């Protein structure tokens, strides 16, 4: 919402400065977004007199002007405007002036061999209009040497404020003035509106269809008007706030839209056939609106029609056919009320923004419907003459009167701010509220223009924003008395531990979009219709991600494309299997690419460079699981990872039927589909699937048992078919005596000469920890024999010879 300081002064008398106004606006909730002072920008442009204008010796279209600038001898200016002529008063800018319309700073130039010391200017060059037709022509009495902005009255700061959706009343300057006056800046000028008596009955009637979202519609005819450009003061006023003057009749409606928050519409009465009907549009109807576009209508949209066709989009925009132009002699002036929700829906549906829509959808003052029409009548009569009819009113002005019981003590209870009863009552009164009572619980009637006031909390806001939020005392907020308990849930703790565990392994945390492309979603088990956005911002951000991997793989490739290919990234974030809350999971995923090994990225003198492998991803996943408190020793690993992994180099972590995560090398065809180069390994763990830890009654750790007897280690080399899983060998060995065997470690896997072509040798070291006595050789041998027997029974292994 824009307005000028001088326009505000019409509604707010008294001595105050621009700073008083802007400070108060910020204080009371009408946030100042900017103050533009055109005068400051255009101070260098002065009124000048063209003493003589003659043909340029070297150019047909240029003139050589001697210009009296009011400062000493006339200066020579080369001018290309066709209207530069002897005896003209215009606007001059000397060298050194910044020309906003051209974004240049003027210098002394030589144009076709002749020196030019300044410029005669068009309105466009000062950004005062789009008029490029020639230099400005001023009347003969314009004073030479005076800044143009002072003479034309443009030395008027333009203030722009952000009006929150609840404050429709401040979309009119009168409403802003009322708030400022209540806040102690100036006095509200609130002249009574005198109705203009009608000279004859309005010949056009209005009918509101029963299902039309229109409570009331007021109309009057003014005949015999002379339309044309509105006077300079009105044009200047509209231009100052960024509006384009059209003609006097239309300008009056725009003026009242901003002056009083009262949008109006004017029909050329001669173009209206028969009576007006307010109704819902019919399927197939359309309207050529004043913006030059044709809108297809349907029954959700409310229109005003005559015998001929639809003439106006109710409360949004008028129609071109019945619009007023310079030839209009009889005008129908409309002041109506519309249901805000319908206006908002219409505007959205048609993609049509207008000053009227903006106001009607926020709700305007119903009680001002007829006074607004009277005010418009008066202005039209003043500017265009004519003879008004009586006002016809279809429907009825709704009575929005409501009484709110307001305990004055609530202000302190809700805000801590102490304001006396009298101060509160007076503040509400200044804002136009009627207050019955002076203490305790008062009865408050909000004014008709404050449709946003629903209850007592709203009244508290009115009081404190006017008396000043700086009076709210900062009050210490003690902790409650309960014992200090952890504030994070298990999942929250796991999330943060997973992040730090992965970063400690050298991975870098990325935050990627929660949406991926449909093909990416489909590749990773998603892509269902229920998870495709109805209005995606881009086609590659269209579907809710089923996995973090596609985003990470693409990010890894983006870094590779920048020349950083040995990249290890992770993300801990939500993935979506459906659109219900329980379908959202907290996943922890990561990728490693090329030489980004856990021990360090890139080549290094101490080790042979080898690309990332599935075990790097497995180790990363296990690090998260350990940090999350998962029972890592009990995890089972199966080889049925999802299709986006390499079928032979991937695995799934399970606890029984509960699938906790996957790891492995990414499938080459998936990488190809994502336009990514391998090798890439990755993992994904669903943190929600890790079982909740058992709640322990005490923090005491289990007693440490130290054995007094020497541990023993025995090595075994088993030959098994290559298809046998090493995990099964370890499991079989460890199961022989769970008390005695404390660790089983695979220290060598060998395939090649010395072992059959389809077999491999797996070497284990088994640690035995006796608890009661030192083991004898015979006892050790007995355990070793049991291990060999058990492993060969479970896996078909033979001891390597």
């Amino acid at each position, binding site marked *: 919402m824009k307005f000028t300081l001088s326009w505000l002064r019409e509604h707010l008398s008294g001595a105050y400065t621009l700073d008083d106004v802007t400070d108060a606006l910020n204080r009371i909730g009408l946030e100042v977004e900017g103050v533009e002072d055109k005068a400051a920008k255009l101070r260098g442009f002065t009124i000048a007199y063209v003493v003589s204008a003659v043909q340029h010796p070297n150019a047909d279209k240029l003139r050589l002007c001697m210009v009296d600038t009011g400062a000493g001898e006339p200066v020579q200016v080369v001018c290309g405007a066709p209207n530069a002529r002897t005896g003209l008063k215009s606007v001059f800018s000397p060298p050194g002036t910044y020309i906003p319309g051209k974004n240049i700073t003027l210098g002394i130039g030589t144009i076709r061999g002749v020196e030019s010391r300044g410029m005669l200017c068009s309105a466009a060059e000062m950004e005062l209009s789009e008029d490029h037709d020639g230099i400005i022509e001023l009347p003969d009495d314009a004073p030479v040497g005076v800044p143009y902005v002072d003479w034309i009255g443009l030395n008027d700061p333009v203030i722009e404020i952000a009006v929150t959706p609840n404050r429709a009343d401040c979309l009119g300057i009168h409403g802003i003035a009322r708030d400022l006056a209540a806040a102690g800046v100036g006095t509200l000028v609130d002249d009574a509106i005198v109705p203009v008596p009608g000279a004859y009955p309005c010949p056009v009637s209005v009918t509101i269809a029963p299902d039309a979202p229109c409570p009331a519609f007021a109309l009057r005819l003014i005949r015999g008007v002379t339309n044309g450009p509105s006077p300079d003061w009105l044009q200047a006023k509209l231009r100052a706030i960024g509006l384009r003057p059209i003609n006097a009749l239309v300008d009056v409606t725009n003026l009242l839209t901003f002056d009083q928050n009262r949008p109006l519409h004017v029909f050329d009465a001669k173009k209206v056939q028969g009576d007006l009907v307010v109704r819902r549009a019919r399927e197939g109807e359309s309207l050529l609106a004043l913006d030059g576009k044709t809108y297809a209508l349907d029954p959700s949209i409310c229109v005003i029609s005559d015998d001929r066709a639809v003439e106006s989009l109710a409360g949004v925009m008028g129609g071109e056919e019945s619009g007023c132009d310079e030839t209009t002699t009889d005008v129908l002036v409309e002041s109506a009320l519309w249901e805000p929700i319908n206006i908002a829906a219409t505007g959205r549906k048609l993609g049509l923004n207008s000053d009227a829509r903006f106001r009607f959808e926020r709700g305007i003052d119903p009680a001002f419907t007829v006074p607004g029409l009277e005010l418009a009548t008066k202005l039209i009569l003043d500017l265009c003459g004519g003879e008004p009819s009586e006002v016809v009113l279809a429907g009825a002005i709704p009575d929005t009167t409501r009484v709110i019981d307001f305990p004055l003590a609530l202000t302190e209870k809700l805000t*801590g701010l102490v304001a006396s009863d009298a101060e509160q009552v007076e503040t509400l009164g200044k804002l136009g509220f009627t207050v019955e009572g002076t203490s305790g619980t008062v009865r408050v009637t909000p004014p008709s223009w404050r449709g946003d006031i629903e209850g007592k909390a709203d009244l508290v806001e009115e009081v404190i924003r006017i008396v000043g939020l700086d009076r709210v005392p900062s009050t210490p907020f003690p902790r409650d008395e309960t014992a200090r308990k952890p504030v994070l849930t298990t999942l929250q703790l796991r999330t943060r531990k997973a992040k730090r565990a992965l970063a400690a392994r050298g991975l870098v945390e990325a935050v990627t979009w929660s949406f991926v492309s449909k093909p990416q979603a489909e590749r990773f088990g998603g892509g269902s219709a229920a998870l495709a956005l109805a209005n995606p911002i881009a086609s590659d951000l269209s579907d809710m991600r089923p996995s973090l991997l596609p985003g990470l793989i693409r990010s890894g490739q983006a870094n590779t494309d920048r020349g950083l290919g040995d990249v290890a990234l992770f993300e801990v974030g939500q993935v979506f299997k459906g659109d219900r809350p329980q379908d959202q999971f907290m996943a922890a995923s990561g990728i490693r690419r090329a030489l980004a090994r856990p021990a360090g990225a890139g080549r290094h003198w101490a080790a042979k460079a080898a690309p990332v492998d599935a075990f790097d991803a497995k180790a990363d996943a296990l690090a998260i699981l350990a940090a999350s408190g998962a029972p890592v020793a009990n995890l089972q690993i199966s080889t049925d990872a999802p299709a986006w992994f390499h079928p032979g180099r991937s695995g799934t972590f399970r606890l029984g039927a509960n699938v906790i995560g996957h790891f492995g090398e990414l499938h080459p065809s998936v990488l190809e589909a994502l336009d990514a180069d391998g090798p890439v390994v990755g993992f994904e763990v669903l943190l929600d699937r890790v079982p909740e830890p058992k709640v322990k009654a005490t923090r005491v750790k289990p007693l440490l048992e130290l054995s007094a007897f020497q541990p023993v280690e025995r090595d075994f080399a088993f030959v098994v078919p290559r298809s046998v899983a090493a995990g099964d060998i370890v499991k079989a060995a460890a199961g022989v005596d769970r008390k005695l065997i404390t660790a089983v470690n695979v220290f060598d896997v060998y395939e090649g000469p010395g072992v059959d072509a389809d077999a491999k040798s797996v070497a284990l070291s088994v640690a035995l920890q006796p608890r009661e006595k030192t083991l004898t050789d015979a006892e050790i041998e007995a355990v070793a024999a049991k291990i060999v027997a058990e492993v060969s029974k479970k896996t078909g292994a033979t001891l390597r010879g």
Partner: protein
Amino acid sequence: MSVAALPDLDALERALHAGIAEAADESALEAIRVAALGKKGSVSELLKSLGGMSPEERKSAGPAINGLRDRLNAALVARRGALKAAALAVRLETERVDVTLPVRETPAELGRLHPISQVIDELTAIFADMGFSVAEGPDIEDDFHNFTALNFPPGHPAREMHDTFYLPTRDDGSRMVLRTHTSPVQVRTMMSKKPPIRVICPGRTYRSDSDQTHTPMFHQVEGLVIDKGSNLGHLKWILEEFCKAFFEVDNVKMRFRPSFFPFTEPSMEVDIQCDRSRPGEIRFGEGSDWLEILGCGMVHPNVLRNCGLDPDEYQGFAWGMGIDRIAMLKYGMPDLRAFFEADVRWLSHYGFRPLDFPTLAGGLSA
């Protein structure tokens, strides 16, 4: 045997010492020891001969022979030590490495946390100290939790302040949305927990907006207090304490401006004092500029009612701010879009080391 039969002890000793001194290694030395002190060694034989002597002979020969033996032993020990030291010196010389060769950098020095994660941990530390717990909720929300319960009536223009992402319309005409703020978590908290309530709700939020300063996904943190007496004055104090703790300054001036949100009444926006006179740098707690950082207010009675709480019994306040935004302000990151581009150069520069865990004891950005 007579004394005269004793060999020349001096000559023997000289010969043995000469041999020890010449022994080039431990095995040569051992050969000398065996030759002298072994079972059949020359000195051992002499010692054995003492048994056959008369007491007088023994009196003079005993000390001489024993003395010889002791000196011989001492010489052997000394020589052995010298030989060992020399051999070790030779070995160590051959084991020399180039210690200027670089080692691998510790993974924990290479890995990084995203600034958003770090800032959420900072927020958690500050508010946990004031007795707040952390609440979370789904990113895909229904209309009730994201709008209606929060006093956005259907069709109300305030809904248009949020450029909402929608999921497809279902058979029953409803459609889910991507939450436009974390406020639905407040609704879920109020509906599932009895007051007193003190929570913060950090999380991802979505609006269909993308330009220099907006991304379709961003992060918010909101706070909520519901009990029977907490008022705006407490909110003011909490926000002051938060700003001091978060921006790590001793004092910061704040400016509360009335504003509008459907879900609070009264509503306010909060600016904090700052100094922007240095190019590319904002300092808080000094200067005369104001920067808007958050919105807040008393929870609207309609919201309390919608969540099953009686507004005449319960009251409280809520606030919300952008996590990405306060991260940018605190750590001086110029461009929001870079947060989501996963450029490792950016992440390594602006990210945080895994061991830099923010604590109130050790400092948030220690």
